[in-house]
């Protein structure tokens, strides 16, 4: 694997391979010594043009557990606020000898540009770009669903026949997009639930059903219910009348959780708006996988960095020289 830019172009075999390697990574994290020498001497740069705590820390932990050196670069208070372009920032990192660049950027497609422009030869991992994709989040969600469902028998399996309901602000959500593509590739059936104002226009092309009523979707007895965060920072128009109304119609409260079939799980990528899209009863119930998702996130990111950096460099570097 040269880069990880999206889940849309990820084929089933590669996706299952990442999940399987993450299983092995997860096994090593229960050992007395969690650190592996695998990526000794490699440098991973976390290039974050957007605020993030958990994704950045998760990537940092993953790189450090594999003995890579980590350089954190936050756009705030850096040369970017002095007007430096993405190209110049990237080439500076290249000159410092970065082997992989983990990038989060408010513009959709920034990681793609970085990977294909020929500015740098490092592997690029998309850690969230605009409203496009957030592939490692989708991979860790798929890993969590598989692990809860199959336990120790997870290796080599996909998610054929598993039903997943994704609820909330699909319009602005890169997590929803990455999950729709990945879950469909792995054979799961995805239903999106959202207020009509928060459904993207091109959604008919996605491999997912769309309904507007949460109770109707939950009545099907899904295996996993994934709540999306209402991104208050992106609510720049009147997408729904009030937060209370949103919470009543599309929020996951105790009553809705109680109606779920045995064994179905409640997921949230975090950070949660408790009381808005998810109630505390739902977030803290035994069905909730919120903290497992965080733990699994480190394993998934270790797997991605391993597959990107450990082996021989393929020569399909995007327009190098």
């Amino acid at each position, binding site marked *: 694997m040269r880069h990880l830019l999206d889940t849309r172009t990820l084929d089933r075999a590669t996706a299952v391979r990442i999940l399987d390697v993450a299983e*092995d990574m997860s096994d090593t994290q229960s050992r007395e010594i969690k650190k592996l*020498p*695998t990526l000794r001497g490699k440098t991973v740069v976390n290039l974050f043009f957007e605020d993030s705590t958990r994704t950045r820390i998760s990537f940092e932990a993953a790189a450090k557990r594999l003995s890579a050196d980590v350089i954190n670069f936050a756009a705030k208070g850096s040369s970017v606020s002095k007007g430096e372009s993405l190209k110049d920032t990237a080439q500076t990192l290249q000159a410092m000898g970065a082997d992989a660049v983990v990038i989060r950027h408010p513009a959709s497609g920034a990681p793609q540009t970085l990977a294909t422009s020929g500015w740098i030869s490092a592997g690029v991992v998309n850690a969230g770009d605009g409203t496009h994709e957030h592939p490692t989040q989708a991979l860790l969600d798929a890993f969590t669903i598989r692990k809860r469902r199959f336990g120790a028998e997870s290796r080599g399996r996909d998610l054929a026949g598993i039903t997943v309901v994704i609820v909330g602000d699909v319009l602005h959500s890169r997590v929803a997009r990455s999950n729709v593509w990945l879950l469909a590739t792995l054979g799961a059936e995805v239903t999106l639930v959202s207020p009509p104002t928060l459904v993207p226009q091109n959604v008919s092309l996605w491999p997912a059903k769309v309904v507007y009523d949460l109770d109707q979707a939950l009545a099907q007895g899904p295996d996993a219910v994934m709540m999306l965060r209402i991104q208050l920072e992106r609510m720049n128009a009147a997408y729904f009348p009030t937060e209370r109304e949103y919470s009543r119609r599309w929020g996951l409260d105790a009553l809705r959780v109680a109606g779920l079939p045995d064994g179905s799980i409640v997921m949230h990528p975090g950070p949660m708006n408790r009381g808005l899209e998810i109630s505390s009863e739902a977030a803290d119930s035994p069905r909730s996988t919120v903290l497992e998702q965080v733990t699994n996130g480190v394993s998934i990111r270790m797997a991605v960095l*391993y597959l990107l950096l450990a082996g*021989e460099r*393929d020569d399909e570097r995007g327009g190098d020289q």
Partner: protein
Amino acid sequence: MSARTVLHEADISRALTRIAHEILESNRGAENLVLLGIPTRGVTLARRLATVIGEIAQTSVPVGALDVTMFRDDLAQHPTRSPRPTDIPSGGIDGCTVVLVDDVLFSGRSIRAALDALQSIGRPAVVRLAILVDRGHRELPIRPDFVGKNIPSSRQERVNVRLIEDDGAEEVTIEA
């Protein structure tokens, strides 16, 4: 491409039985013994050895798998390898006599990686090495304690171990 068979099914089985006796002899019984196979075929051989030792000593011997992929020093020279599961017996390995089991001993680099991998899991009292085929050409100061057969080979030749459980055949061949 001429392949010649150097060990047949009966030879492999005799070699494993002898190694089982040697392990018991050097350990003075089956006490504190843990067998760890190096994937893929080392794990199969470790399981078979555990069965044979169990029959001889009338006890059950803990057996597991130790993946060394993440500890290799030649990862960058090959296409990315997929790691295999590591499975340590529930009793752990602290204070035990760990016998590493692999099919072919060549450069010794896998065993070096295995020693590092072992270190991250616990601290055995003694570590020994059992090998079905030793083909020479060591690059590190590593030697086996129990050997099924020494097969002198040239570096260009390939030594293939095939086992029923993994390959559906049971033989060791050497290919020019």
